[in-house]
């Protein structure tokens, strides 16, 4: 049997814990670390044990810096050192039962019990803003990211990107050695070179030294820079983020005279108005905002009320999809709307313009909710809009209640200004030493700066990055950067709360953290850990009791009360005249919902995540509204029985610059607007990201870095995009029950008409697992999908296979809309329904899928022969089939990449070719909980088993538990008056149920929607 199924849990998932790493610490030093039993260094414990062995292997097998790509080396390592986790070395043989080896430690690491996962608190950052996470580690292999409940930006949840960062850690395409002009050199070479040059800079006070980096919030990095500044007073720092927040800070300057950072308290808001702000999905704190937003929207017996959301936006965003009332405007029209809204609220002037009814309704609603309302402007809108919004919030007396202003968490300097100056200096040859830390400016800097060319002008350039990418190609030196999960550090969340980042594993690819690099430039020989620790000691953390507080902080993941305090602000009214809306077609830039600004281009998980509203994978497209499409003669029939992914290719021209890409129709998108997402068209992203999509940065100039006048013309070509959903109407099948809040409680759902079976019912005493999903709360953000992929070793299959409708996601988010021009969207997460009368089980010829005593619909992979009959007979089509050996690294069918094996969850079988698979309610977690409970001689507690999707969900729309437990949350949800199951008439008796999609429309706007 194994022969057919080479990938078996033995040699795949119970893989080794050991990674090759260079010797970086002396045994004696590590011993000391052990002595003071610092929990912070738990991670290095078993590395200590094996350091010598690893070194032995490395030395005898490979010279250090000669392996361009260490996949092969990892594999050998893997085989030799397997067993440090008491697993079998994967000597997959063709013999019936080969003798396998078992390799114990030489010296057992303390406090590590093989087979028992450990969780460590750290933080992961995006755009400089931290999200606190707990990382699951099996024998030293980090395998899964969970949100940290203690952390304000997470509260236990994460978004899809955070989930995928664990894959980024293992990505075999990450750069793996230090190079000069593309050739491998030893770190020593680099060190002497750079130090010599720095010495020469002393004379000029470092006038020629420039640093360029994206937003960062690390106090330690700031401290090190301060120290550099002392030594080189004229040293200059520059910032660039493709997804920058210039307008936020500029708006604050206009309103308060200084750059400030807004923090919203949505849990206090009855009415929320968003002006092009996607606060539920993008930007700092979006996960937290989703939670607060949802808590005021959760319609239950005890609280049958919900907040109201108005969205005025220039694209189709996740937040827009949640709106009770939505107005789609061209980007440049939003400013006028904001101004009108301001005057409507200030002078009660009823809006006279096109959207008068809408506007005055919004204004009234806001006024009626003074202090309990909030208006949010998006970072893509100009400073004027932010200034206007700041004024509106002030007029509504929202400051202090729903809106707070704090000191900026990241440097508020204008990114556009900053990179403009740097480019100028480069062109004037003023830059002698250029350090580019992280980011990828050559790829995403404003195209008209021609930054790539400018970099070549630098006398000496160093790039620190995870990948040897477009930017590295233009620099003298490339230094592999350590992943956040590989290095010490610290960072702040959207509200200023600080976290210490601790490494979960020694750098896989000899990476160096920014801190380490800066320390080196300073000639500071200490370990990163010591430096970070020092930062906080100096910051006076815990005062005299520092050591205790420090360890506590590490284990908790949050620096106690480090959040910034709200500033008192007084708003100066916005007087400047508002700019006119342009009349032409406009292009709207947007960070991509999955690969963001391109930093995740090489992440197969994210590439294969269906983009909200598009359900497209592996590509970015030009989104237009149905009317615009009609005007341009684009023929895509979204109402077809099966909508194929064949998209017309168009050429988008902005300021004379052109880019070609597929066009797709998105109902609800504003007319005469084209939305393009950043992050695609990469050339040096890696095997996965290269060549996917088109590069929007090629038409993104300094002027209109968020939106600009443009023109669109069809080229006549067609391009195939990989959709995961091909039909968007529910066909009146009641898949989502849509209701208005007013209807709550009426026409109680009767459980009478259920006894429809000739057969007697099966009894489920003991645990009775069930799930309820609240469609009112689902924003369609895909966090659950990503979490499921990470937890269950789900394979990615590549664009080609997605086109052939073979994606493997166990939980998917179906999206339906009711109308092309003024659509209302609904999102339905669909995992396995775990039917009590499961149609799939009856038809399986080998009883590979059966029911257990707790009502779980079990799928036994190693029994499956692959008839696919179960999938045919599944009304919900939640089963997934391994048509090929999908465990091979995505996109490349010919080679296996062992390092990715280390990522796998050892408690979930890795499915081989020809096997059916599906959602299991995370049975491995249930099983673990059951064993724990049994040993403690008690029943499983409510909330003890949390499925991966449930844990990740930012809005906590998913509830899972024991239906037989009267006090369980799930039982309460099941008794909600409007609880329903999909296609009840089939009498499959699903265990997964749904709550209807409630809306809270403004009576004044009923007909207008």
């Amino acid at each position: 049997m194994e022969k057919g199924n080479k990938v078996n849990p033995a040699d795949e998932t119970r893989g080794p814990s050991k990674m090759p790493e260079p010797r970086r610490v002396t045994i004696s030093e590590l011993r000391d670390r052990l002595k003071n039993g610092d929990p912070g260094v738990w991670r290095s414990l078993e590395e200590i044990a094996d350091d010598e062995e690893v070194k032995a292997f490395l030395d005898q097998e490979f010279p250090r810096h000669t392996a361009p790509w260490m996949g092969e080396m990892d594999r050998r390592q893997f085989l030799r050192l397997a067993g440090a986790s008491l697993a079998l070395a994967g000597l997959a043989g063709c013999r019936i039962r080969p003798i396998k080896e078992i390799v114990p430690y030489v010296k057992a690491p303390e406090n590590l019990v093989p087979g028992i996962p450990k969780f460590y608190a750290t933080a992961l950052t995006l755009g400089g803003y931290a999200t606190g996470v707990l990382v699951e580690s099996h024998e030293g292999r980090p395998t899964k990211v969970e949100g940290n409940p203690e952390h304000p930006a997470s509260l236990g949840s994460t978004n899809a990107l955070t989930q995928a960062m664990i894959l980024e850690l293992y990505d075999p395409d990450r750069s793996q050695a230090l190079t000069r002009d593309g050739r491998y050199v030893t770190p020593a070479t680099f060190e002497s070179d750079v130090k010599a040059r720095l010495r020469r800079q002393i004379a000029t006070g470092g006038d020629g030294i420039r640093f360029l980096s994206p937003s960062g919030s690390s106090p330690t990095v700031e401290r090190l820079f301060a120290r550099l500044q002392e030594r080189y007073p004229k040293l200059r720092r520059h910032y660039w983020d493709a997804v920058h927040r210039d307008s936020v800070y500029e708006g604050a300057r206009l309103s308060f005279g200084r750059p400030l950072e807004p923090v919203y308290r949505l849990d206090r808001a009855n009415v929320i108005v968003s002006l092009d702000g996607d606060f539920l999905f993008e930007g700092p704190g979006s996960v937290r905002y989703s939670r607060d937003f949802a808590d005021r929207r959760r319609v239950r017996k005890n609280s049958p009320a919900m907040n109201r959301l108005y969205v005025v936006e220039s694209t189709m965003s996740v937040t827009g999809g949640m709106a009770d009332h939505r107005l789609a405007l061209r980007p440049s029209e939003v400013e006028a709307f904001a101004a009108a809204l301001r005057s409507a609220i200030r002078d009660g002037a009823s809006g006279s313009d096109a959207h008068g009814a809408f506007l005055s309704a919004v204004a009234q609603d806001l006024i009626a909710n003074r202090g309990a309302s909030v208006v949010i402007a998006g970072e893509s809108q100009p400073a004027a809009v932010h200034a206007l919004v700041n004024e509106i919030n002030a007029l509504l007396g929202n400051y202090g209640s729903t809106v707070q202003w704090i000191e900026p968490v990241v440097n508020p300097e204008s990114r556009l200004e900053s990179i403009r100056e740097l480019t100028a200096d480069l062109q004037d040859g003023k830059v002698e030493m250029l350090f580019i830390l992280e980011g990828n400016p050559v790829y995403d800097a404003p195209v008209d700066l021609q930054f790539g060319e400018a970099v070549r002008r630098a006398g000496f350039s160093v790039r620190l990055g995870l990948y040897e990418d477009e930017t590295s190609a233009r620099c003298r030196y490339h230094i592999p950067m350590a992943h956040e999960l590989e290095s010490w550090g610290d960072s702040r969340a959207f509200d200023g709360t600080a976290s210490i980042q601790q490494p979960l594993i020694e750098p896989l690819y000899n990476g160096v953290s920014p801190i380490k690099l800066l320390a080196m430039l300073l000639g500071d020989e200490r370990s990163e850990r010591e430096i970070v620790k020092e930062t906080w000691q100096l910051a006076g953390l815990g005062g005299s009791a520092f050591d205790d507080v420090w360890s506590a902080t590490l284990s908790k993941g949050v620096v106690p009360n480090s959040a910034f305090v709200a500033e008192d602000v007084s708003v100066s009214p916005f007087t400047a005249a508002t700019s006119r809306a342009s009349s032409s077609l406009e292009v709207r830039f947007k960070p991509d919902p999955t690969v963001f600004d391109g930093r995740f281009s090489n992440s197969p998980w994210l590439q294969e995540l269906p983009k909200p509203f598009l359900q497209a994978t592996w590509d970015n497209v030009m989104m237009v509204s149905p009317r615009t499409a009609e005007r341009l003669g684009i023929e895509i029939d979204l109402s077809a029985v099966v909508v194929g992914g064949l998209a017309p290719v168009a050429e988008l021209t902005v300021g004379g610059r052109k880019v070609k890409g597929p066009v797709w129709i998105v109902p609800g998108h504003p007319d005469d607007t084209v939305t393009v997402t950043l992050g695609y068209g990469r050339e040096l992203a890696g095997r996965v990201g290269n060549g996917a999509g088109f590069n929007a940065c090629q038409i993104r100039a300094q002027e209109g870095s968020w939106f600009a006048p443009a023109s669109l013309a069809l080229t006549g070509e067609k391009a195939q995009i990989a959709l995961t959903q091909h039909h968007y109407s529910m066909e009146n099948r009641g898949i989502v029950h849509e209701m208005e809040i007013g209807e709550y409680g009426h026409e109680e759902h009767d459980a009478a008409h259920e006894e429809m079976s000739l057969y007697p019912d099966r009894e489920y005493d003991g645990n009775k697992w069930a799930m309820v999903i609240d469609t009112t709360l689902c924003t369609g953000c895909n966090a659950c999908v990503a979490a499921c992929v990470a937890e269950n070793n789900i394979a990615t299959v590549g664009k080609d296979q997605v086109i052939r409708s073979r994606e493997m996601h166990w939980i998917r988010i179906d999206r339906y809309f009711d109308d092309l021009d003024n659509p209302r969207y609904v999102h339905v997460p669909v995992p396995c329904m775990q039917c009590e009368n499961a149609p799939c089980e009856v038809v399986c010829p080998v009883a590979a899928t059966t029911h257990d005593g707790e009502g779980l619909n079990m799928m036994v992979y190693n029994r499956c022969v692959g008839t696919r009959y179960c999938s045919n007979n599944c009304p919900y089509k939640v089963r997934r089939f391994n048509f090929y050996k999908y465990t091979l690294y995505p996109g490349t069918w010919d080679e296996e990449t062992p390092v990715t094996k280390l990522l796998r969850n050892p408690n979930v079988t890795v499915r081989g070719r020809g096997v059916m698979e599906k959602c299991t309610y995370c049975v491995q977690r249930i099983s673990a909980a059951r064993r724990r409970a049994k040993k403690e001689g008690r029943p499983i507690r409510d909330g003890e088993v949390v499925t991966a999707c449930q844990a990740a969900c930012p809005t906590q729309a998913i509830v899972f538990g024991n239906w037989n437990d009267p006090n369980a949350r799930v039982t309460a949800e099941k008794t909600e008056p409007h609880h329903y199951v999909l296609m009840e008439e089939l009498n499959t008796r699903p265990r997964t149920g749904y709550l209807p999609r409630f809306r809270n429309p403004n009576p004044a706007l009923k007909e207008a929607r």
Partner: protein
Amino acid sequence: MAHYPTVIEPKLRGFTAHYSTPEELIEAAKKAREVGYSRLDALTPYAVEGLVEVLGQRDDRVPKIVLTFGVLGALGGFALQTYVSVFDYPMNIGGRPNLSWPSFIPITFECGVLAAALSALIGMLMLNGLPRPHHPVFDAPEIERATDDRFVLFIESEDPQFNAGETREFLKGTGALSVQEVIS
């Protein structure tokens, strides 16, 4: 059915008489019986109705065998399914009861038919004493026409009434086309 020793030293085994139509054969066979010959056999290219009755060799055991095995097969099939899904490893499959007998009907039926069919083949062969590639009568001259266009009556030397001279004469008397010695 006739019994022949498999020891081989050439000796007279009997006489074969050839006829061109089944009717003549039947006539001859009738006569032979009347005269009192008992160890007779008739070899024909296709089934001739009424011949066995004349020779007194009618045997109706085949249908009984088939019926028995058919029933046994069906019962066995149902028993297997019941044992497996009720006693050996009962499983909750799609909420069906362990003994979901309606689902067991098709296989029960197939098992019955299979057993019956095989028993028909094997039963028929065994009763006919086949396979029997070697047989003395195959040594008779022209016997190959018995599977072509001749209808052959065979009187064995084992027959108590058998007498080389008389028997040949008798057969000639029945209007046979030819009478041959069977020496094997």
